[in-house]
């Protein structure tokens, strides 16, 4: 096994290699453990959790906790299950992701191909907005949403997520378009192509990869958001807030198996995205650390 000659500048001895493998596997276990615990306990009857071993496989397999989490569990005061909140999240995420990505693409196009005096400042101001602690905008946002009549509604949440998402989407597209030859844009301009024509015909066709990155990043962030959902969700709370209400509810018996099923349901959309498009997910994270 260790006999393979590695073409790497750093070579390690046999013992070291075994230790490295052991450590790497140990960490893999550490990362997988909570997922395993959640998965395995979401298909157990409650008695097996309270009376048995959390790590053991179920003796009786059941999908009842999943059914309960989805459609009958008590969330707040209503026994609605997570279903309506899941729909709220979808209704919030889809328009917010679409709008912020389109706006980000146009902004990135302007900031790289139609540069003007002070454009770096404009970008810098937008970029800093990605990193503010959102506590600083909670109070005025509550006031403004109330004035607009959007408090406690899905459109209100869409607005909030678009506003605080365009900094990141602009960053992605700006860094991406910066590498695109500006000469091509100028040539098209000389041929009489207009602003939108150039965007539509020349830049958009090559924007696929960065659009995927932007969509995934925005989807993950907005789906996983809790602070805005809890502050401005009102009667249209998203999934994360509902899950928290389910888990923290102090009435009745704690149905751990239902909580676990609910947690997986809340995690499922972003997990699926991660599994299907992990490569782009990582790229988005990296670009999110500004280095583009």
């Amino acid at each position: 096994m260790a006999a393979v000659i590695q073409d790497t500048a750093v070579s390690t001895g046999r013992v070291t290699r075994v230790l490295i493998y052991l450590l790497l596997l140990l960490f893999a276990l550490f990362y997988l453990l909570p997922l395993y615990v959640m998965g395995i306990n979401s298909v157990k009857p409650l008695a097996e959790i309270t009376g048995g071993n959390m790590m053991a496989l179920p003796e009786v397999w059941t999908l009842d906790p999943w059914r309960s989490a989805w459609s009958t569990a008590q969330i707040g005061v209503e026994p609605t299950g997570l279903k309506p909140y899941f729909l709220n999240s979808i209704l919030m995420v889809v328009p917010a992701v679409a709008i912020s990505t389109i706006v980000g693409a146009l902004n990135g196009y302007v900031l790289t191909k139609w540069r003007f005096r002070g454009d770096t400042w404009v970008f810098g101001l937008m970029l800093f907005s990605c990193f503010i602690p959102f506590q600083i905008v909670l109070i005025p946002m509550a006031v403004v949403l109330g004035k607009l009549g959007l408090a406690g509604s899905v459109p209100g949440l869409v607005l909030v997520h678009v506003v605080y998402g365009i900094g990141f989407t602009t960053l992605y597209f700006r860094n991406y378009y910066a590498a695109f030859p500006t000469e091509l844009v100028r040539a098209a301009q000389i041929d009489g192509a207009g602003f939108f024509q150039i965007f539509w015909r020349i830049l958009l066709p090559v924007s696929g990869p960065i659009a995927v990155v932007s969509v995934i990043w925005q989807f993950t962030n907005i789906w996983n958001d809790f602070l805005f959902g809890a502050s401005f969700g009102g009667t249209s709370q998203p999934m994360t807030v509902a899950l928290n209400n389910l888990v923290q509810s102090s009435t009745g018996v704690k149905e751990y198996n239902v909580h676990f099923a609910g947690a997986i349901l809340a995690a499922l959309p972003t997990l699926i995205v991660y599994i299907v498009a992990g490569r782009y997910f990582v790229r988005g994270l990296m670009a999110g650390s500004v280095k583009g």
Partner: protein
Amino acid sequence: MTASTAPDFRTRLQDWLPKLVLAPSFAVTILFVYGFIGFTVLLSFTGSKMLPRFDWVGWENYEKLWALPAWNTAIVNIAIFASLYIVICTAVGLMLAIFLDQKIRGEGVLRPIYLYPMALSFIVTGTAWKWFLDPGIGLEKVMHLWGWESFSFNWIKDSDMAIYTIVIAAVWQTSGFVMAMFLAGLRGIDNEILKAAQIDGASNWQLYRRIVIPLLRPAFLSAFVILSHLAIKSYDLVVALTGGGPGRATEMPATFMYSYTFTRNQMGIGASSAVIMLMTIAAIMVPYLYAELKEKK
């Protein structure tokens, strides 16, 4: 007349179009980010309770804030949490990246396993770890059932130790991401430099300590910036994992701000705590972003 102004208007429109397209985003940013920051700063100097009021009270809220035991707990907690979280995440991330870089078989399987927690929400992470660390059903009970009767792990119920459970869950969530950043840095290092050092007789340990780690400086900086900003913003994880408890033992600035503003009706004090959070993050982010943007010009 009309024939000559029409194309003129068209060109002028084309000149203005880029700025017109950017204008709404810029306006929204100025209003919803900087305007709102200004509004909150203003509120922090007023006696606002349940609703915003504009009676000027000077520095009173800040004085009250720093005299509050709950805020002091929050400050001590964020100091403990942020330093441990940043140091452990960086150490774990760097170690995993270096080990994964040794031409490991199955790297393609291990990497996504290390990184997937980053796709979850802090609420899910908090829920999972809350039950895992609960002595009644979680790890402690499992150890007892496996025959290790004296095993005790009740940090989550212990007001002195609960803050460390937040560190554990947060490290679980983001250390894989730090690993990915370091791994990208390692893959960018020219192998020739390493080979030259090896010919000079450098051991592996020296190689990493003297050459590789110094070359990873940009990755260290990015990791520090991202982690510190995540730490200060941490709200969801605390809410889901400990709810700020036991008692108020795991109060953080983010949870403090929320409860003082929206449940205790001390909006002025809540606003002043938000201002302090913003200034802390700005002190880290502004120089970083400034340097990044300047470099790119």
